[in-house]
Every structure is written in structure tokens, then in C-alpha cells.
């Protein structure tokens, strides 16, 4: 089975066909996805601004990171299922052919790997072994990856 066949089986599954019958289900799912977007923005910015020497700059890094990670995980719990449902709605007729979708998936993969490996390790280590320059670099990479995910996601939704 090719990838396109797989996408077709998702889009034309009985669940998705039922979903497409109502014009309201899609925007409601999209709305919840946007709420997740807002939350992940807060959770990522809280820490990355701190790494850049802005925002909550007086707070110990490991503490702030623990506070933020809970909301980051919650936002992913909101974003991933609502994102997958939106994708399934038009998987084979739209998303498969859309470069922005594949860019978003690649950036999302990199952002998740970076966030839960390099960035996480840096945050737990705290300031002791980190130089300001390396903190700023980690924040810049994190912000760049998540911004790519967000902007590519926005482009998917354009007419």
C-alpha cells in the first residue's frame, strides 16, 4: 500500500466521512487546535525568553523549565489529536500534495526531538555549565523550529 493509498483510507474512513457531513466539526476542531497553539506559545516562550535573558530572567532555569514542561506536554496533548483529525479530513486530496504540510511535519519532528533532548538537558543542567551564548543558541534554535511549524501550519490553511 502506497502512502497515498494510506492517506485515502484515512480520508474516506467512516469516521471522517461522518465528520465531513457537518460543516461545524472542522472549525470546532480547528478552534481547539488554536487554543493548543496559544498554550504551546506560552510554554515555549516562558523558557526561551528566559534563555535569551528576557522575560523571567531572575528565575532559576531548572525550576522554570519544570513549570513550563507540564504545559508544553498538555499543549501537545491538545495539538496532536486535533491536528491529526484536521489532517485526516483532507489527507489524500489536499495534504499529500501540499509542500507546507511536509515542511511542517519535518519541522515538528525536529522541534520535538530538539525540545526533549538537547533543550531539556540544557535546562536541567541549569546555568552552572551553560554560557549565555549557548543558552541563546538553544533558544534561537527552539524558537526557529517552532516558528517554522507554526508558519507552515498557517500556510496549510490558506486558500
Amino acid at each position, binding site marked *: 500500500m502506497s502512502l497515498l493509498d494510506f492517506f485515502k483510507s484515512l480520508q474516506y474512513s467512516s469516521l471522517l466521512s461522518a465528520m465531513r457531513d457537518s460543516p461545524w466539526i472542522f*472549525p470546532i476542531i480547528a478552534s481547539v487546535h488554536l487554543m493548543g497553539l*496559544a498554550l504551546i506559545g*506560552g510554554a515555549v516562550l516562558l523558557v526561551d525568553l528566559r534563555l535569551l535573558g528576557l522575560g*523571567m530572567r531572575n528565575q532559576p532555569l531548572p525550576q522554570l523549565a519544570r513549570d513550563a514542561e507540564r504545559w508544553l506536554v498538555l499543549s501537545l496533548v491538545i495539538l496532536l489529536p486535533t491536528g491529526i483529525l484536521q489532517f485526516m479530513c483532507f489527507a489524500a486530496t489536499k495534504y499529500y500534495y501540499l509542500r507546507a504540510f511536509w515542511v511542517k511535519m519535518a519541522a515538528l519532528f525536529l522541534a520535538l526531538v530538539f525540545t526533549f533532548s538537547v533543550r531539556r538537558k540544557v535546562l536541567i543542567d541549569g546555568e552552572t555549565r551553560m554560557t549565555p551564548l549557548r543558552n541563546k543558541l538553544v533558544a534561537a534554535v527552539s524558537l526557529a523550529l517552532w516558528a517554522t511549524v507554526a508558519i507552515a501550519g498557517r500556510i496549510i490553511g490558506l486558500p
Partner: protein
Amino acid sequence: MSLLRLCEWLASTPGSTALHESQYLYLVVLSVHVLTLCLFVGTAAMIDLRLMGLTMQRVRMSEVMARLLPWSTAGFLLMILSGSLLFYAAPLLRYQNIFFRAKMVMLVLAGINVWVFHKTVDRRRAEWDSDPVPPRGARVGGGVALVLWAILIMLGRMIPYQVYWFDCNKQPQPAILNLLAGCVPGSR
């Protein structure tokens, strides 16, 4: 001048037509409006969660406000600016949109919530500044704000979907819908 007349006049200005018919500018403004959610609601939500005692419990409330409010305010101004442009691009369409109208009501309620918070429990912030879980009034204020922003996001996303429900230009419609949407049949 009535609100409707104001919208009609705005719609008749060349800038409104240009923005409405632009190939990219409208979509750029729309994208800025959507993505600014991360900055504005994201940082506001962190402040609200702290007010509810759900995060950064060891950080003083004043510290959270001082560090995050400037970012949230910047995001809010960007939201108002991009949102005003989106309104300016199609004033009559927004005027006759139930979701847009409800969103504006929610925005006013959110403003009142902030005002009440500053006039009441925030006046005594010195007493609870370091409390891991702020007093009831602050928790309620934070919770109400979070719920209002969530509703606001949903109403905003719904604005283009009114056409699947009813069309002011296709009458007759139920009187209650005409009233709520302020339908002006024949306008665009």
C-alpha cells in the same frame, strides 16, 4: 452616525477595497493575527495560570507580572492592529456576522474582568504576592480570563463559517437571526 453608517463609510474608502481585494496582504495580516496568539494568549495564559496557583508557585506574582505583562501587552497591541485591519477589509461583512459580534462582546467582558481584578484583589497584592496559591478572587479572575480567551479563539475561528448557517442576503431568515446578526439585506 450609526455603527452601520460608519461601516458603510469605511467600506467605501479605497483602502478597504484594496485590502479586501489584495492578493497577499490580507492573508499576511490574517496570518499575523492568528500566529500572534502564541505571543499574546500564550503569555497571558501563563499569568492566568499563576493567578490560579497552577504554575510557577515559587515565583512572586509581581515578578511574573513584571516579566510577562510587557510581552503580553505587545502581543495584544499586535492583535488589535491586525484585527482592526481585518475588520477594515470587510466592515459590512463583519458587522453582519454573529460570531464577530459575540467575539467583541467577549472582548469587552475580558476587559471588565481585568478591570475588576485590578480594582479589587490586585489592590491587596502585597498581602498575597508570595503565596503559592493566590486568594479566591485572583484564582477566579485568572480562570475567567482563560475561559474567555478560549471562547474568543473559537468565535474568531468561526467568523468565516456563518455562511454555512445562514446568509443575510438570502431572506427570509428567522427574525432572531436577523436581529442578532444585524442583517442588512442587499448590502455586501
